[in-house]
């Protein structure tokens, strides 16, 4: 059994003893993790391991059966998902579904209005291509462009934690390389929790990796020497 996560007072996000069920079926078992400001933390694991459930529970979309989730010592359990988003903990889902009937500009405006942050310079700096696509309906964007829009939109309001679910799934290598640089840059301002199966990417950018297997955290790798693709793979 893995000991409880090495949580401390500096954590911007701390999860402990988290149990989540879908009806009768228990999905997460006694999960503990901690994230510090400006840290990139990755959760790796096979499909169905419970990684997305973990992010959704943190983001307030699933109610845990027990356990605690805190951010800056504020309990998040029981809070509405939109309250958690307003607190600066933004979830970027896996499916890359944007508001397809709205333009890129309108999608960004939605993010701006919610956060009252109308400065898009940072978004455009990270994703210059979005500038050319402002008036295009989001439904007509490619997978990579949609991912840029979703991450870009979540940057508005300067979030303290970004929960990003499978960001590189199905994307071209050039876009993956671009996202890798973006994530490294983003970590200068925000903490990132990334669920990802691309182990080379994970190992290149993360300062901590949690291996998730069958709803349990089976390994916590925080030592740079141990954050290697072959080491991670051993736990999957």
């Amino acid at each position, binding site marked *: 059994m893995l000991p409880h996560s090495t949580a401390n007072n500096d954590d911007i996000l701390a999860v402990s003893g988290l149990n989540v069920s879908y009806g009768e079926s228990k999905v997460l078992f006694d999960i503990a993790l901690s994230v510090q400001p400006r840290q990139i933390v990755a959760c790796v694991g096979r499909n169905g391991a419970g990684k997305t459930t973990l992010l959704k529970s943190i983001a307030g979309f699933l109610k845990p059966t027990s356990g605690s989730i805190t951010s800056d010592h504020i309990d998040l359990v029981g809070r509405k*998902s939109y309250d958690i*988003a307003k607190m600066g903990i933004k979830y970027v*889902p896996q499916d890359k579904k944007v508001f397809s009937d709205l333009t890129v500009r309108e999608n960004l*405006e*939605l993010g701006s209005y919610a956060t009252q942050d109308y400065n898009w310079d940072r978004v455009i700096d990270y994703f210059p291509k979005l500038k050319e696509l402002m008036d295009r309906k989001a439904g007509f964007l490619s997978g990579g462009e949609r991912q840029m829009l979703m991450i870009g939109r979540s940057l508005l309001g300067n979030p303290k934690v970004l929960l990003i679910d499978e960001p590189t799934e199905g994307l071209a290598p050039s876009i993956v390389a671009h996202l890798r640089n973006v994530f490294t840059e983003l970590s200068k301002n925000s903490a990132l929790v990334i669920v990802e199966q691309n182990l080379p990417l994970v190992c290149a950018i993360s300062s901590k990796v949690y291996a998730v297997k069958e709803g349990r955290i089976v390994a916590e790798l925080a030592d740079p020497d141990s954050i290697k693709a072959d080491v991670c793979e051993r736990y999957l």
Partner: protein
Amino acid sequence: MIKAFRWWWGILLAFSLLAVTRAFLPLAFINEVVIFSIYTMGCSFLLGRVGFISFGQPAYLAVGAYGTAFYLFYFGTNPYIGILLGVLSGLIVSGIVGPLFVRLRSDYFALVNLALAVIIYYLMQKVLADITKGDNGLWFLTNIASTPLLDLGKPNHFFIFALLVALAVWAFYKYLDDSIYGACCLATKINEDKLEFLGYSNYSVRLLAFIIANTTTALAGSMYAVYLGFVSPEITSPARAADPVVVTILGGVGTLYGPLVGAFAYTGMKDVISKLIGNWELFIGFLLVFIMLAGEKGIWGTLQPLLEKLLFRKKRTAGTADGKEAH
């Protein structure tokens, strides 16, 4: 100035065309179209923007109509105050039932609204018959006082008033469509979870949309009351519950001018066909099924892209011609 004109020109053109039809169509028909289009606007907003189908719109129509009728029958004579009270009644009722109804999924939402229409029908017909005069209804045409500028007791003046009100309603909905709130409404229809990722409460977005839409419907009800000078429980008859939904689909769901085009087409069909054959409802039913099967975008939903294409092509041709001259 040019920006303001660009924003307004579509609305002004639509209502100018409607005003012109006054020259060759009966006034009663045009008045009916204008009020019916306002009635449909609320339903269209709910269905097209928020994704809620409501078979209970007659309930809110009746609330507005009776709000106006009670004032004009029992208390006062000023039709403008009557309309204001009708709108206020709609605002209050939708503010009371809205917090309960908008929590429901779209199919249950449709049914619970229909149930409300049935409740109001029986309230007006039986339970409150001493006040509402039951099936006989409230007659107050002669109670309506003359007012300066636009005397709403006169059909010609009422027509101008109805056009101005409709113009304001369309401008308001166009503003909503263009606003962030309009985008929020569409976003909650497309994917409610994703709207919450951004920090919005779906419940609040839907509740506001519900109140706006049903207050608009109540406005139509109060205008019917003043125009006809009569209100009976028949206005909230469940048999007419599908009318605004049908007109919304006929005009084009979620389009700004769909309710106007739909109301014009529906009232026109009803008017023409009922003069030709006895069981006109049956014929219209078949015709509507055919229209909806032929093009689910509705009349305006089909015409709009064609018109835009035509206008765009003309503009492009003009642009090319200008370019040639410049060279």
